[in-house]
């Protein structure tokens, strides 16, 4: 029992930091309607960044690969949803069908492309995912690039609730809710099911798990499948929030921020990825709202945070310090 509690003790300082941040946002929102509006928007889009970051973390935990193609895969699955809707499905039918298709795509990619290279150097796996990025981008442009304007119907509409003078968009609440639900479902899967246990074992101790009868490669493929699902959720939520329709470049900036979020939260920590995404979403909004002269430095700031994290606390806000034994 204590073995489960001691990592909690180590994480506490960061939790204090996160709680302090949340309190700051709450107080600010109560004081200023504009602050509240910026926070709500930042949380909404930050949830999408967090979901994509979580996909990155899931893949990293399972196979120690940084998947540069995660955003493009998410974009592709969104086009699949678009196509399904064009063929007559309702939004939610297409939504769940797309998640299933994403799962299949993710596992397929792992089995065909990643499995042969996952034990190689970082460079090798990075390049394979970069090649995948280019390939998927080419496919999406080829099939759907010629459409003048494509859009998915928004599942939440554009209405808002009035909370003390602050409009809280259904859209942002819905985004946050759906991302939270998917994250909780995946967490529950890992925690409480036999397959989840197998996946955790395969990621942590592949040799021992294999000896215990776990089909390690199958488990890792499943990990990629679930990551693809989380990526699809991110993109399906992100697209309506951008108000400008579906284009092949949909997830490209989001991927950049998802990387920063994943590192910030800790590449091994799912909770950290989500919190990191929310933090970045809110931070960017606040920067735009209150420090307009620094607008060119948005991306460098996000990456300065990433760099600082790597240098000061490489395991991220929520990660555990990795000790290398010689």
């Amino acid at each position, binding site marked *: 029992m204590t073995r489960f509690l001691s990592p909690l003790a180590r994480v506490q300082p960061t939790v204090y930091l996160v709680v302090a941040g949340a309190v700051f946002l709450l107080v600010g929102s109560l004081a200023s309607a504009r602050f509240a509006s910026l926070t709500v928007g930042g949380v909404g889009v930050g949830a999408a960044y967090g979901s994509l970051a979580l996909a990155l973390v899931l893949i*990293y935990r399972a196979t*120690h690969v*940084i998947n*540069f193609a995660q955003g493009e895969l998410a974009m592709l699955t969104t086009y699949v949803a678009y196509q399904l809707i064009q063929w007559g499905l309702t939004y939610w039918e297409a939504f769940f069908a797309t998640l299933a298709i994403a799962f299949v795509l993710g596992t397929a990619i792992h089995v065909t*492309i990643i499995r*042969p*290279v996952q034990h*190689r*150097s*970082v*460079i*090798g796996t*990075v*390049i*394979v995912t*970069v*090649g*995948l*990025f*280019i*390939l*998927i*981008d*080419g*496919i999406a*442009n*080829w099939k759907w*690039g010629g459409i003048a304007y494509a859009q998915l119907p928004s599942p939440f509409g554009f209405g808002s609730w009035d909370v003390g003078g602050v409009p809280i968009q259904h859209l942002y609440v819905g985004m946050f809710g759906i991302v939270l639900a998917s994250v909780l479902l995946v967490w529950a899967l890992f925690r409480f099911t036999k397959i989840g246990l197998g996946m955790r074992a395969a990621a942590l101790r592949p040799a021992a798990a294999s000896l215990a009868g776990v089909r390690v490669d199958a488990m890792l493929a499943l990990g990629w499948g679930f990551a693809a699902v989380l990526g699809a959720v991110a993109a399906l939520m992100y697209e309506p929030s951008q108000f400008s329709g579906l284009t092949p470049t949909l997830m490209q900036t989001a991927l*950049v921020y998802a*990387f*920063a979020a994943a*590192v910030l939260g800790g*590449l091994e920590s799912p909770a950290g990825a989500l919190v990191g995404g929310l933090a970045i979403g809110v931070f960017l909004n606040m920067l735009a709202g209150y420090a307009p002269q620094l607008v*060119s*430095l948005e*991306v*460098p700031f996000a*990456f*300065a945070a*990433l*760099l600082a994290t*790597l*240098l000061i606390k*490489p395991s991220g806000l929520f990660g555990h310090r990795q000790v290398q034994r*010689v």
Partner: protein
Amino acid sequence: MRKQLPALGSVAIVAAVLSVLPFVLSDYNVYLGAEVGVFFIAVLGLNILTGYTGQISIGHGAFMAIGAYVTAVMSRDHQTNLVLTMLVAFAACFVIGLLVGLPALRLSGVSLALATFALAVSVPQLPLQWSNYLGGSLGVQASSKPSSLLGISMPGVAALSNRWIYGVAWAASALLFGMAWLILRGRVGRAFRAVRDSEIAAVASGVELGLYKTLAFGISAAYAGVAGSLFVMASNGFAQSQDFLVVLSLQLLIGAAVAGLGSLWGILVGAAFVGLLPKISTSVPLVGSDNGRDIVYGLLVILVMLVLPGGFAGLLARLRSLTRDLNRESIPVKLR
């Protein structure tokens, strides 16, 4: 002596072919040849870092950007000799590469990849922030006339003509290749390889990790800086931050991986892969079509990494050991 002969032979063949090409190829293809030369230098430098010293960088596009802007700004403001700006770019990027290498000492593998990625994403934004001096999104136009190399006057040299760029690019490539060869053959190269193979063993053998890791960063950055300088010259002297986005850093890494280790031919193939493939003429059926290009390029990158983990150099090594086994007329040993 015998080991050096094949290498010398390769160098001689390549040099001969390269000298003849400008007279045989059309003007546009000479330009493409120059682009390959630019990527040759960058891939060579990156290979020193990733292949020989084992450190990853997804950020060398940033060094190309720095070298490019050095050239463009110096020649815009002071009409400096373009070849001189290349030397300044080399020196400046060497220093900056050392500075980047210092914090990189604490990082490795995935963390280093992400940290250099951060560099690649952030550096192109800087000209937009300091637009007064660095031109912002309008870019910087070099205004120097290119002078002759080695002080010999060249009749009929047009400003920044394709042949001029080709000459400068490949001359620089030859010099830098020679320099790399000398470095890697000697003590420094041995230290690099020791760091790559096992940092712990290297330290135990007395290799100063910090010095050599930083040095590798500095050298590879300097090479990328020169490549950036040449890139600007090949773009008619115009430097624009949009030319140096993350995509470029990824291309360089792909080039280094396709090249593999320890082979001149490998680096040529790697440079041609990233320099030429994305520019395949639209007259080539299917592959040349707008999206066909990307799809084929992406597939090729994946295939190369799956099938040839050692890159082109690895392929050559395998072929060489295969022929050696056949020559020996002994039972061929199964290749792993």
